[in-house]
């Protein structure tokens, strides 16, 4: 290992931390009145960073096994980059009008990039120390960002709830890690389980460890924080939590379960089976009753996380590919939905489902984007969401999980009902007090356009899936 290797192989990490430090220097050096010029710089640099992350990565191990990467992990990071980029575009107006006057705009970008770098290290972790640091780095700043809307008590409440429950989850997880360490005597992922997978203490530690991760993906019964935090936090942070953070955690969960804890599959398959059933069902049942759009999407994303578990349960290169593909689609879909909610909230300050009645009359474009996103979430062909779910289910069917599949299909049917509720309100109903015609900024339009393009292209253009499958096949 030499220095050039460290720079080229870890280029994603270097570049994001470089942007972070640049912004920090800007915050200190630039005159207070001209701080607004840092916003385009931040976004511009991040566009370059995202473009760079599409250069394929190599398979490598650095720092004595603490950091490892390969083509698939690199692609995962690219997915996260795209998601954060969309969030940057969508939140531009909000940052400019709400955060900038308080002098918090630059901090928002710095924390966002710190979180992203934490996710990189989380995905690339080669031992439990790096895993845990990445886990914390990708959680704690979000808690602060959730409290960024200082005027609203709900936002503060969201931040405190997140930080407390994240602390609890980390505590449980750390206890699990320490028990596993007590059994195996090593923290490195390589050769972690070689001879110890039959020890009950290890299984006990593993279950605790899994609970910590399940908290972050908000699987039932570790989901209690999600709706309140999603509702209270600013929309940009809600989309960060429900899309980027969830995607990163799903990725690392998949990587760990399919490689490090492979020998424990008897244990985790049973646990995951139960979690999947609970998560899908309870997420759906609660989503039925929601009237606040953010809360509604929170429960819907809990239910979606349940579907993802099907792919992990299926395992193998095919299962992994379906998971990554589903997450890729989920990024565009959910961010599309959140983008529309943000655009409407920025203009009118409304986020209740009843407010959306007759939206099509006043805002046809925005409501079409939302309809598309909801169709994709529900899994209606030919939009991308259908293929995501279809591949997941066929992967699970291939491994013989028929009962689970039946439960999943029932849940998809239930979800159709509640996804169609806002669509009916927007398209078919008229309202006496509709949301006035809103004119979103250019940045928001770009963000929404990327989402729409993603939803359409991934649904109609098949080589993406075979590309992902190629990546996972070379990984496993």
């Amino acid at each position, binding site marked *: *290992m030499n220095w050039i290797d460290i720079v080229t192989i870890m280029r994603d990490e270097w570049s994001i931390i470089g942007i972070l430090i640049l912004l920090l220097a800007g915050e200190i050096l630039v005159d207070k009145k001209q701080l607004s010029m840092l916003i385009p710089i931040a976004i511009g640099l991040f566009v370059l960073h995202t473009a760079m992350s599409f250069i394929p990565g190599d398979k490598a191990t650095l720092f004595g096994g603490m950091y490892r990467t390969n083509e698939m992990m690199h692609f995962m990071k690219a997915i996260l980059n795209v998601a954060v980029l969309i969030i940057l575009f969508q939140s531009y107006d909000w940052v400019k009008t709400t955060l900038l006057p308080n002098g918090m705009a630059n901090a928002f970008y710095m924390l966002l990039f710190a979180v992203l770098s934490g996710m990189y290290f989380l995905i690339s972790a080669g031992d439990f120390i790096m895993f845990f*640091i990445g886990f914390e780095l990708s959680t704690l700043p979000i808690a602060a960002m959730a409290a960024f809307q200082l005027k609203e008590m709900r936002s503060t409440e969201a931040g405190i709830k997140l930080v407390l429950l994240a602390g609890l989850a980390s505590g449980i997880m750390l206890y699990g890690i320490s028990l596993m360490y007590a059994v195996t005597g090593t923290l490195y992922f390589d050769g972690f389980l070689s001879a110890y997978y039959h020890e009950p203490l290890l299984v006990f530690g593993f279950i605790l460890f899994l609970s910590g991760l399940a908290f972050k993906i908000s699987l039932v019964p570790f989901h209690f924080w999600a709706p309140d935090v999603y509702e209270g936090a600013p929309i940009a942070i809600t989309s960060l939590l429900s899309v980027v953070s969830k995607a990163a955690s799903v990725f690392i969960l998949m990587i760990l379960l399919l490689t490090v804890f492979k020998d424990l599959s008897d244990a985790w398959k049973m646990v995951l089976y139960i979690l999947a059933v609970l998560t899908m069902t309870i997420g759906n049942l609660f989503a039925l009753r929601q009237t606040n759009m953010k809360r509604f999407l929170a429960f819907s994303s809990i239910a979606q996380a349940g579907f993802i578990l099907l792919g992990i349960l299926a395992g193998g290169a095919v299962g992994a590919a379906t998971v990554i593909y589903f997450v890729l689609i989920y990024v565009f879909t959910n961010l599309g939905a959140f983008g529309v909610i943000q655009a409407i909230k920025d203009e009118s300050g409304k986020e209740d489902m009843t407010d959306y009645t007759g939206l099509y009359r006043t805002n046809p474009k925005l409501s079409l984007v939302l309809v598309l996103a909801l169709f994709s979430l529900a899994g209606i062909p030919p939009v991308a969401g259908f293929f995501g779910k279809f591949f997941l289910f066929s992967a699970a069917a291939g491994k013989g999980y028929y009962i689970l599949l039946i439960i999943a299909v029932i849940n998809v049917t239930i979800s159709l009902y509640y996804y169609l509720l806002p669509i009916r309100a927007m398209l078919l109903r008229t309202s006496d007090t509709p949301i006035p015609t809103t004119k979103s900024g250019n940045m928001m339009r770009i963000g929404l356009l990327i989402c729409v393009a993603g939803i359409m292209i991934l649904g109609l253009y098949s080589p993406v899936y075979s590309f992902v499958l190629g990546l996972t096949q070379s990984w496993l």
Partner: protein
Amino acid sequence: MTERIIFYILAFIMIVFSLMSVTSTKIIRSAIYLLGVLMATAGLYFLFNLNFLGAIQLTVYAGGIMVLIVIAILLTHHVGFGLPVPDKKHMILGWLAAMIGITISFFQFTTHTFKPKIGNLDDRVSKMGADMLHYGDGGFVLPFEVISILLLAGIIAAITIAKGGIPHLKKRLKSGQPTTVSSSTKKQ
């Protein structure tokens, strides 16, 4: 023999203080009992000759975190304040959960045969320092550096929230609204 007796004394202190810390209804006393637990843990480290770890435990927990907790309590609470006693249902459920956890852990620990690490533990501070900056096998330079990013993010977040809150606080003071969170978020 002496070591064993000291170990059991420390363990007893830890158990008693942690129980008192959880059950006390005065928040500052909870904090002080927690301090007892942390100090006893440091004592355990010193007993096992892990002096560096013990000193870290003292600085970080007793000197850093506990002082922060106590200052936070000093700023937000009042001597007369007491926390509400939780209702019976929650008490029973909590104790039940704790008992289940203890039972499972107890059985796991007693049935598992732990293997002692072979070889002497090199706990010289200079060796630890070299390990922190070593980037090959068994080195910790990467986590060491990434933690610094975590701390940087923490500092940025804390400063931003503290500074951003000031204008709102001033506005609230001017308009005569309550300034503390506890009095304004009461359930209607």
